[in-house]
């Protein structure tokens, strides 16, 4: 096994800025905003109304279907209103706005010993805590950890690759809360009795690998695999391949192949939920970029405005050209810092210069750079041309739906063609058209 995958890129990492900054706690001062849709799947249903008093850790919106997640208030205070508010990923969503009373009175959390719990009880606790995939996808973790045939799961791949530039929040979780992380992995392994856990960590984080190895020595079910530092090493498919040697196509569910993938921060929260009974109300966020005065890692109460986080890091050095929620490869450009930190916000970056708008687009010279970096071995050059022509049929025949939207193609393109952007838009359009077809067929 080569501990890596074919293709990929080496973008500027920027992790030096924050990797050695321990997690600081950030107490919010302003109002807190909780969008009911901050996970994959159906939006949660609000269960509070304006004027209600809430405690920290109290459910304020309930999961509305199997693929959905509870949302808890992160502070104690009063519900001000329920209204549309901007999301950090663009657009707006129904959100519960809470006035913080500054007392942080907590709802009652019931600790338990996972040894005495049944599988169903463990899953119930994870579900109640509202834990979703914190690497960015936001898929409810209880759904992930309860595949149909849990006995047939061979591998729990624990994603500690953190290949996204600038981000060090997973790194700090691995380093500062190693025990809780391993505890979370052990709980997940209880749910999948025949599985082995492999923790994939990029080899640019030797301290994290060392810390983990120190805690798992002698445990036959858990191992730590250093993987090559290369983007997108932390994507499901590439990480599964690098750690287990299994090639799973991107259009299938990995659990059909006996593999479940979960992020380290998600598993840390599984431990908090099951052992301490604490719901997901805080997360670690990296504040970084060449325009941040004091880059660092913060433990933030969910619902805190990005602006408060920026202020906590000393603000910007000069007027930035770009703010990003997430990393430089897959993050979302922000235009409104009043948007709140959500369960999937891993970072806030401020960049002095926007590389995208300073590079004009030219014609494709067929250099095939995009083909050679595509980790899914697709032909982004061809797919983007088909996408721009609106030829969805040929787009699908050329495996357009296999794209994982990592952006390597756009990164390397010497003509600066927004390849991934075209492909993503067309993938979305095809998905929407299929959904419409199904709806028509049903009615």
């Amino acid at each position: 096994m080569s501990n890596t995958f074919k293709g990929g890129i080496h973008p500027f990492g920027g992790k030096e800025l924050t990797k050695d900054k321990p997690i600081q706690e950030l107490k919010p001062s302003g109002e807190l905003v909780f969008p009911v849709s901050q996970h994959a799947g159906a939006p949660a249903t609000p269960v509070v109304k304006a004027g209600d008093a809430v405690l920290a850790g109290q459910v304020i919106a309930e999961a509305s279907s199997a693929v959905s997640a509870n949302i808890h208030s992160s502070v104690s205070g009063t519900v001000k209103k329920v209204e549309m508010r901007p999301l950090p990923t663009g657009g707006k969503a129904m959100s519960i706005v809470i006035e913080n009373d500054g007392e942080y009175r907590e709802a009652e959390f019931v600790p338990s010993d996972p040894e005495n719990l049944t599988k169903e009880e463990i899953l119930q606790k994870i579900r109640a805590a509202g834990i979703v995939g914190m690497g960015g996808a936001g898929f409810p973790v209880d759904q992930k950890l309860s595949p149909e045939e849990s006995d047939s799961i061979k591998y729990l791949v624990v994603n500690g690759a953190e290949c996204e530039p600038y981000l060090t929040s997973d790194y700090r979780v691995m380093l500062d809360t190693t025990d809780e992380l391993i505890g979370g992995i052990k709980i997940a392994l209880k749910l999948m009795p025949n599985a082995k856990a492999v923790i994939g960590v990029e080899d640019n984080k030797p301290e994290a690998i060392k810390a983990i190895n120190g805690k798992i020595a002698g445990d036959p079910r858990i191992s730590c695999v250093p993987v090559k530092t290369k983007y997108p090493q932390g994507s499901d498919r590439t990480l599964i391949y690098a750690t287990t040697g299994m090639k799973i196509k991107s259009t299938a569910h990995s659990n059909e192949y006996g593999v479940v993938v979960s992020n380290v921060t998600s598993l840390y929260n599984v431990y908090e939920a099951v052992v301490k009974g604490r719901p997901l109300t805080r997360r670690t966020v990296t504040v970084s970029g060449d325009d941040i005065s004091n880059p660092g890692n913060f433990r933030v109460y969910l619902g805190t405005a990005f602006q408060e986080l920026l202020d906590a890091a000393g603000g910007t050095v000069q007027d930035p050209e770009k703010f990003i929620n997430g990393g430089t490869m897959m993050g979302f450009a922000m235009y409104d810092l009043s948007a709140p930190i959500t369960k999937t916000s891993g970072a806030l970056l401020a960049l002095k210069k926007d590389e995208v708008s300073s590079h004009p687009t030219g014609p494709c010279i067929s250099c095939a750079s995009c083909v050679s970096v595509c980790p899914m071995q697709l032909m982004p050059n061809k797919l983007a041309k088909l996408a721009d022509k609106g030829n969805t049929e040929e787009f699908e025949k050329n495996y357009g739906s296999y794209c994982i939207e990592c952006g390597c193609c756009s990164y390397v393109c010497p003509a600066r063609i927004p390849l991934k952007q075209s492909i993503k838009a067309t993938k979305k359009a095809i998905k929407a058209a299929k959904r419409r077809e199904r709806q028509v067929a049903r009615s």
Partner: protein
Amino acid sequence: MSLLKVSESPHVRGRKSTQTIMRDVLIALTPGAIFGIYNFGVNALIRLLVGVFVCIAIEAIYQAAMKKKVTVSDLSAAVTGLLLGMNLPSEFPIWMEVVGCAFAIIVVKQLFGGLGQNFMNPALGARCFLMLAYTAQMTNYVMDGVSSPTPLAFLKPGGEAVGDPSLWDMFFGSVNGVIGETSVIFLMAGAVYLLVRREISPKIPFIYIGVFAGMVFLLTPGHNFDFMYMLKEVCGGGLILGAFFMATDYVTSPTTPNGKILFAVALGVITFIFRMFGGSAEGVSYAIIFCNILVPFIEKVTIPKPFGWEKQKKEAKGHE
């Protein structure tokens, strides 16, 4: 606060641009071009300069006349001009060279939509055009003031065996031919630069030369299993220049990984046939433009299967 920029991810870009790639190709061609000037004198220098500057000028004038954005700063016209100059004999009439530049830039490149849209290499297209239009001048190879045949003409099966050049001369380049093709060692120095900078994939040149050399070694009438003969065929004519600098032209070679292999094999086979059984001792230019035309078909049959594909036999059926 000034206005923020908002765009879809990724928010960073790599260092390479079309311009830096073209610049690297120009740098890589320089050793071979300088050797050409050393070998053929000031006439060669003039041909190279005319090629570069006339191509740039024609592209700029054409784009301005057509009210298009003038894009000569991407250096692609300069590469075409230098390659065209390197593909001419040193005494070639300059006005004919200007005609060749116009053909390369206007007919082969701009009429098909400009950079990235041409289906054959502009410099090679022009060389073949000049070969047909001005055959006598294009095959008049003058060295040290005397017109003489090229090494390949000696090597051609049935050709005269007199004056057979030494392998060392062919490797170093002190032989007759077009300006930029003679020195294997200087061309290779540039090729290594392109390979190290990862501007070209090693697949096309090495497979091309390998297949060609293998066929020469095994199948040449009268020279089977003649290792020396094979080496001379590899070092002679435009093979090294063509394999590393023209067959690898992005626009006119396949972008699929297996397509590159197929393309290179086809080049090797066709070059062998042209050189051994064709009317001329040369075959590389025609082989490359012939294979350029095959590229869309080669790409069509070599679309790669995505990651994790093999395991899904059922779905494979559905797509084929």
